[in-house]
């Protein structure tokens, strides 16, 4: 078997630049729940010990399993809570973080959001509807813990030589409003009173860019994360996508790209009908992370030599499949999606809490050895 000739950072940069590295870079997209399960810890106890404890759990996983190439700081329940999401922390019965969807915002709130912006809306109004936080001081304390913990987590990974894909995830403005209003209510708003929604989306997009740039500068990163679980063609027709998602997305990507920052899109549900839109973005301005429902091989055909694709080992395969099945799928995406580079080996939508140890090892081992053994 040949030896590795690149560092983790060189390897990931190579893939993002659509070139072929010595072997595929690996990014398992670890969740705190999976980190706990794979290191025989109890997430339902650790999650109440604060951000650092959960970050340490992910670092423990990294060290115990021999490390990998690309990482992100821990995505704890508090990370999502400070963003204005109603969250149920992991329990023994349900070890994954749960987003609770509801009508946490009212129609009248669009006007407030358009006026003061999403972040101030969260701290002035929404956080008190979706959490037990009592006042601004308590919110600021939690927010500070998340930011400081994130920076510490990044520093720890940097010591280990890993490439940091992003500091913290940001929900796309469309997804943010859908989660906060509930999917059907939000869709009714788009149907019956779209102008007010658009005013809010416009303001939130400006803020999204401003906040993202600030975060990248603070963390000294050239990558940012955009999460979207709802806007794809499996849920909305293209006329909705064309009006309410794509223009704001173009604005976001172009703003980051002009500052040398790549946007990484976490795209859940099937995006087969939307893939060709991403060809309109500047080459190497974005990466897409698929969740196993989009046809990744068709995505490669469309976006070949245009943007990097993070593959998509399905949670069901990681949890219920056999190691040889995981290894076979890894080899398939390495051969077919990574044949000319532009591929990062990853899990679809994050590593599930129920992932089997032997399957996780199969993913890491195949990624580290397959191409070097050829």
């Amino acid at each position: 078997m040949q030896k590795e000739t690149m560092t983790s950072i060189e390897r990931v940069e190579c893939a993002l630049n659509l070139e072929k590295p010595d072997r595929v870079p690996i990014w398992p997209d670890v969740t705190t729940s999976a980190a706990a399960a794979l290191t025989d810890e109890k997430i339902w106890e650790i999650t109440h010990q604060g951000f650092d404890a959960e970050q340490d759990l992910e670092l423990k996983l990294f060290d115990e399993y021999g490390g990998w190439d690309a990482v992100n700081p821990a995505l704890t329940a508090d990370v999502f809570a400070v963003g204005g999401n109603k969250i149920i922390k992991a329990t023994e019965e349900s070890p994954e973080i749960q987003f609770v969807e509801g009508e946490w915002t009212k129609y009248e709130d669009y006007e407030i959001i358009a006026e003061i912006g999403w972040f101030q809306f969260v701290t002035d109004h929404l956080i008190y509807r979706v959490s037990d936080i009592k006042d601004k001081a308590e919110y600021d304390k939690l927010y500070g813990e998340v930011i400081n913990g994130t920076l510490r987590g990044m520093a720890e990974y940097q010591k280990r030589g890993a490439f940091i894909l992003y500091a913290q995830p940001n929900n796309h403005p469309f997804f943010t409003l859908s989660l906060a209003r509930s999917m059907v209510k939000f869709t009714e708003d788009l149907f019956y009173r779209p102008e007010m929604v658009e005013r809010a989306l416009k303001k939130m997009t400006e803020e999204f860019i401003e906040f993202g740039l600030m975060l990248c500068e603070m963390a000294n990163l050239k990558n940012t994360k955009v999460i979207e679980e709802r806007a794809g063609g499996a849920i909305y027709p293209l006329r909705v996508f064309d009006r309410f998602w794509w223009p704001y997305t173009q604005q976001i990507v172009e703003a980051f790209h002009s500052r040398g920052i790549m946007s990484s899109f976490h795209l859940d549900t099937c995006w087969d009908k939307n893939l060709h839109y991403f060809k309109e973005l500047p080459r190497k301005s974005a990466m897409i992370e698929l969740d196993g429902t989009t046809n990744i091989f068709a995505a490669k055909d469309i976006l070949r030599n245009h943007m990097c694709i993070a593959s998509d080992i399905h949670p069901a395969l990681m949890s219920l499949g056999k190691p040889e099945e995981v290894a076979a799928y890894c080899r398939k995406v390495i051969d077919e999606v990574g044949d000319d580079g532009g591929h990062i080996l990853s899990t679809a939508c994050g590593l599930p809490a129920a992932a089997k140890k032997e399957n996780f090892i199969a993913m890491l081992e195949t990624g580290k050895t397959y191409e070097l053994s050829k």
Partner: protein
Amino acid sequence: MKLLLIAGFLGSGKTTLLIQIAHHLVSASQSIAIVENEMGEIGVDGDYLNLEGLQVQELFGGCICCTLSTGLISTLEKVEELYHPDTVILEATGAARPGDILNNLNTYQSRVDGIQVITVVDANRYPMLKEMMEPLLTAQVEAADIVVINKIDQVEPEQVDLIKKETADLNKEAVIEAISAENKSSINIIADALQ
């Protein structure tokens, strides 16, 4: 163990229908377990239903698309070991595509020996949903064995006829029934369609 999967958008009346079906099956001497996976706060009063002799299991998944498949299969295994029900009724999230759930069940599990899908269509919201969320609405109807057009008391008869025709065009094999689930006798209309 059979699985009855109830799909449909949040607010379409899935929970009301689920409870009626559960009681109907219990009255027919079947043992029932309920698995809840709605994205919003749980609509079923688990404590109440437990008192009624129905076992309720909450199935959470961090996101709508993928972790559900894993969680569902392990939940079904757990439910079978704990309760040995004749039928499990799963209330899926409003964003769920039943076809995706069925694919994963058929690939990875062996506990369920029969699956029926009921898709609940909200007659009142149908025009809006058809215009704005046609891909998801279509996927839910196409995967159904039974399409229940609910809340027909809130729309004109012509609207009900139109929905029946359009859903039949999407899924020619499905049994299509129009009801108002608030009317408890409606369960009799769909009981025959249940295996």
